[in-house]
């Protein structure tokens, strides 16, 4: 296993973090994701774009098996994380989600203190051996979430008392506190004002140093600003996937072009 990844590294400087092969997703009888193949690279920001209802969230949620919580949802095909099939019966989704963190569209801090919001993940995964280490993780995560300066004096205040933008950055900090390898973000800026959005985008760019980030967004500008790779979904199909610059300047598929130029959406 390890040898294989090493070999791959030799071949390609960019490591493949997640590989999805022939993924099909059904909600009952609805075929929501149709035969999607995509390779998400390590230390790269990948953007998913596409019109509403095309299956971006559905596909994103497949990557950390959050779809398991939906009874009628069925996933076929394989999704490999570092070469291991995450839908293998031997895989416990809880362990997977510790590796693949998620930030949701609506900020959803726990109705607990800011400190506990961050400390919860490390606590349940046993990442800290004592209070000092935990304090350390909390501070580091809040700094990475670009919110430390705003909350350092009120770590005991409830996380739900923060503004929407602060809450979203708190959620990002919470997600990075568990040291995931991949961070999935489903429209993380849709509830934010331009200033908070800019902060989050800056943050995503920083996170790229350590993680592989997948972001769903409705904003073409945002996708262009933050991502290196872009995937365009349409009606459950992955229409086009490639370098962001290439997709935005020189799309190969007419559907991509008309979406980017605002004709479908």
């Amino acid at each position, binding site marked *: 296993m390890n040898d294989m990844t090493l070999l791959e590294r030799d071949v390609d400087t960019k490591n493949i973090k997640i590989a999805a092969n022939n993924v099909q997703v059904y909600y009952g009888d609805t075929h929501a994701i149709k035969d999607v193949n995509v390779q998400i690279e390590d230390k790269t920001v990948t953007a998913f774009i596409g019109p509403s209802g095309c299956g971006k969230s559905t596909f994103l949620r497949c990557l*950390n098996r*959050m779809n398991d*919580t939906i*009874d009628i949802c069925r996933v076929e095909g394989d999704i490999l994380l570092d070469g291991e099939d995450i839908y293998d019966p031997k895989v416990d989704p*809880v*362990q997977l*989600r*510790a590796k693949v*963190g*998620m*930030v*949701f569209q*609506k900020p*959803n*801090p*726990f*109705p607990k203190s800011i400190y506990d919001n961050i400390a*919860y*993940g490390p606590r*349940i*995964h046993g990442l800290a051996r004592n209070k000092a280490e935990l304090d350390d993780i909390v501070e580091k995560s809040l700094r990475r979430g670009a919110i430390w300066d705003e909350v350092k004096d009120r770590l005991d205040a*409830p996380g*739900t008392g923060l503004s929407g933008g602060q809450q979203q950055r708190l*959620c990002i900090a*919470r*997600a990075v*506190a*568990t040291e995931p390898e991949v961070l999935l973000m489903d429209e993380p800026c849709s509830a934010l004002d331009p200033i908070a959005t800019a902060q989050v985008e800056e943050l995503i760019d920083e996170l790229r140093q350590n993680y592989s980030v997948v972001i769903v967004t409705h904003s073409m500008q945002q996708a262009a600003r933050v991502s290196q790779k872009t995937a365009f979904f349409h009606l459950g199909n992955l229409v086009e996937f490639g370098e962001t610059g290439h997709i935005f300047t020189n799309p190969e598929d007419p559907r991509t072009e008309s979406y980017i130029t605002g004709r479908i959406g």
Partner: protein
Amino acid sequence: MTETSQSTENGRKPHGGSLMTLSKRTARRNAAEKRFQIYGIAAIAVGLLMLIILVSTIVSRGVGAYSQTFVTLQVELLESKLDKSGTRDLEKIKKVSTFGYAPLIKNAFSVKLEELGIQSELSAKEQAAILSKSAPAQLRDYVIANPDKIGETIEFRFLANGRVDGYMKGRVSRESIANDKSINAEQLDFVDILVVNDVIEKTFNLDFITGADASDQRPEAAGMGVSMIGSLFMMLVVLALALPIGVAASIYLEEFAPQNWLTDVIEVNISNLAAVPSIVFGILGLAVFINYMHLPTSAPLVGGLVLTLMTLPTIIISTRASLKSVPPSIRDAALGVGASKMQAVFHHVLPLAAPGILTGTIIGLAQALGETAPLLLIGMVGFIASNAPDSLASGLMSPNSAMPAQIYEWAKRADPAFYERAWGGIIILLVFLITMNTVAVILRRRFERRW
């Protein structure tokens, strides 16, 4: 397009006219709104009126039970009657039955009358009859507890007979006792005289709240205390069983169970169970717990089990409702950082649902506390004549009563003195229920949702 052409055809704009004048439509709408408000106020007024009538009736009829007429007498505990041998041997003293004590009371009356310089036409027996039938027993209990006091003269406060008590409270009059064999007009005159001389007085009666039920003949001695303990035991059983079972069932159904026909059937059945009349649970308890499992009749354990069955659906329904009201985003958040399903539920969902669960539980308990019918079927009217410490020790398995069953029992008895006590008991029951509901409201306020 058609809109504009229409309005130009008619030659008027849809919202034409001055803002200062009410259009016909607006006037009609406003009138309808006014009418609806009047209906609403009328409905509230009717409700309030009913409540006032209810409360004032209960209080006015029940308050009498909290005061009681007492007769104070100095009784000489004659050694010649109680301990002929003079050895103070408890076994021998115990041999003297309550009949042996009756003469002491008669004596005490004649001494008192002499002291006050009052002549009475009544026989000694008639004089003593204004006391409760429990008076000799009260003397005997005292003597057995304090044998060294034999030979001394001790002051006793005896309960007055129920009729005398009723006379003092205005319930009994000379007309109403015309056909009453247990008391006559001369005795009432006698009572009047004793009242003037401060031998008879009416005071607050703590024994009604703490005491045990008494036999048909002695309404003046009956109290709610023991049935309160019975109710308390049952509530403990209900709380210990219904809360964990109900919460566990709801958490499983709400958070873990797959959505399929089986869970649908269970769900429908739980809702149906909530609507099953309580008497059905009573007969079920009779058949299963008593006839089949041979648990003791009239025991608070059985009553508690039956009430648990009755309370479970209420708790499950309210628990599921409060679990449902926790936003799914909280679960997603927990799962998203790698919590297991159970961790998500127990660390995040349950604390948020707790106030709702508690409120539902308290309301379920309050319902159970006031439930009468099923208790009658399992015989929870077992009357035990021991007061607080003994009755507490009697525990879950020995016969006991419960507040509502006790009230029913009293209301059923012929003597109007019991009827008054039934109303008095209702006051206690209502105080309990109001307290519980207030606690529920306070809890809800206290842990107001914070997300």
